[in-house]
């Protein structure tokens, strides 16, 4: 009777997580008549959809890696940089807030800051004579979107990686020093390998985070930007592809990509984390 206690949880997961997803996956392999087919999968390669996937992957990889590196640098600085403790706790609190400050309001904030009439845009133009829009910057572009995503990606990295950096023992560094290691050797042989699994895991999380984000992109650019979540959003709203099953295939593509990212992570982690329990 022991398993009775977890029945509600598994029932919930099956009914509201697993089955809806499987339903989509199954739908992706059928045509409108309900027959098995690979047409929808093949149709994903049409230029517009392929481009959407490519742009989405680019944005997600860029913001995941930049966010992870910047977050790691900031977390290292606040923990090991000998900064006053109030600055450390202020940064951590702010990171907690900013990592959850995504979606529509974040888009508003960036429009008010770096939009065509944004405060910083105008300030740069009128006071410093730098017209960033004339120089090719556009908030409603790939780079603008990436810049906006980093606002929650970097803090998310800080929040997740801080405990891992805290877990590094001071004595490891001292032991390495007495054994004759330089700081760089110590980093290369101990610190980086120890942090690697957490770092990698967070990069994958940041990737999935950016890849599935709809609200920020939609509020920033409307339906115009050609990225997968926005394409899918439009498809669900009004069947813009005129083929519901192609919509399912679009969703399947998203699951496959985040799934592959996670498998890659698990595989790399297995290789690098044999020393963990």
């Amino acid at each position, binding site marked *: 009777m022991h398993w009775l206690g977890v029945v509600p949880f*598994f029932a919930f997961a099956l009914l*509201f997580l697993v089955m809806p997803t499987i339903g989509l996956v199954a739908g992706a392999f059928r045509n409108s008549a309900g027959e098995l087919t690979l047409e929808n999968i093949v149709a994903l390669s049409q230029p517009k959809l392929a481009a959407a996937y490519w742009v989405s992957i680019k944005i997600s990889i860029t913001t995941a890696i930049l966010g992870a590196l910047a977050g790691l640098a900031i977390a290292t600085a606040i923990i090991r940089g000998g900064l006053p403790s109030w600055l450390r706790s202020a940064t951590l609190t702010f990171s907690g807030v900013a990592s959850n400050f995504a979606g529509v309001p974040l888009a508003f904030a960036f429009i008010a800051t770096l939009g065509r009439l944004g405060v910083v845009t105008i300030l740069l133009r009128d006071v410093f004579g730098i017209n960033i829009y004339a120089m090719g910057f556009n908030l409603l572009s790939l780079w603008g979107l990436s810049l906006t995503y980093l606002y929650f990606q970097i803090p998310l990295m800080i929040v997740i990686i801080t405990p891992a950096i805290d877990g590094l023992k001071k004595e490891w560094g001292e032991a390495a020093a007495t054994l004759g290691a330089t700081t760089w050797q110590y980093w290369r042989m101990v610190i980086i390998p120890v942090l690697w699994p957490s770092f990698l895991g967070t990069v994958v999380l940041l990737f999935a985070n950016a890849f599935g984000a709809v609200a920020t992109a939609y509020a920033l650019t409307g339906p115009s930007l050609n990225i997968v979540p926005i394409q899918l959003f439009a498809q669900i709203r009004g069947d813009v592809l005129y083929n519901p099953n192609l919509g399912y295939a679009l*969703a399947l593509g998203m699951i496959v990509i985040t799934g592959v990212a996670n498998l890659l992570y698990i595989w790399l982690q297995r290789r690098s984390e044999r020393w963990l329990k």
Partner: protein
Amino acid sequence: MAGAAYFILPLIATFEFSLRKRRGSYSFDAYRTVFSDPNFQATLTYSIIVAIFTILLGVLLVVPTAYWIRLRLPWLRPVVEFITLLPLVIPAIVIVFGYIRMFGSNSSLPFLATARGTDVLLVIGYASLSLPYMYRAVDTGLRTVDVRTLTEAAQILGAGWVTIISRIILPNVLIAVLSGAFLTFAIVIGEFTMASLLNRPAFGPYLQNIGANFAYEPSALAVIAFAITWGCMSVIQILSRFAPKSANNPAN
């Protein structure tokens, strides 16, 4: 320094922008417009109610499960952890798409046939979105109290399962549960994708609609949303000070 500027400038800029509604001088006109908008009040109230139901559902799902896994079925832990992490792998838009396909008016579970049913489905969707955070918070909380000893002590005193969970376990992990609850609140309150695709009158779609149609009010709303998020995170941080560091036996 550059890092600090990147994070602080948008906040200052947004606030400054939100004060510019009246020509020539700073004013809180944008906020006045927002607060007096009946849709603002209605959608925010709706989202708060949905958030509360989401938290209740999340607690009911997660606390007994996490407890049971720790106490009796530790070998199931990897499976449960994997499931709780699924919402981080499957994007919300895909989950809601799956719901629309599966629970339509013609299906055997026609949640979407009525408005009330759709509300319930939205709560369910949000509960699955918050699963990773809720489970992690509760499981961490359970780790610091020695679940097994507490349970055995209660059993010796003749307590039944409902009593044990509601009177012994829940109070001991209350702080962890509350942390998870406020995080859930922060995530749910402005959520756009699910609410919009299920066509519910929630705060997130309202925000988006304002953004598409007004100039200064969106900034005011962004400031308000940031304040709400900040409030939730501050509560979590204050709560964490009261959390038991480790009770009697932090052995595992």
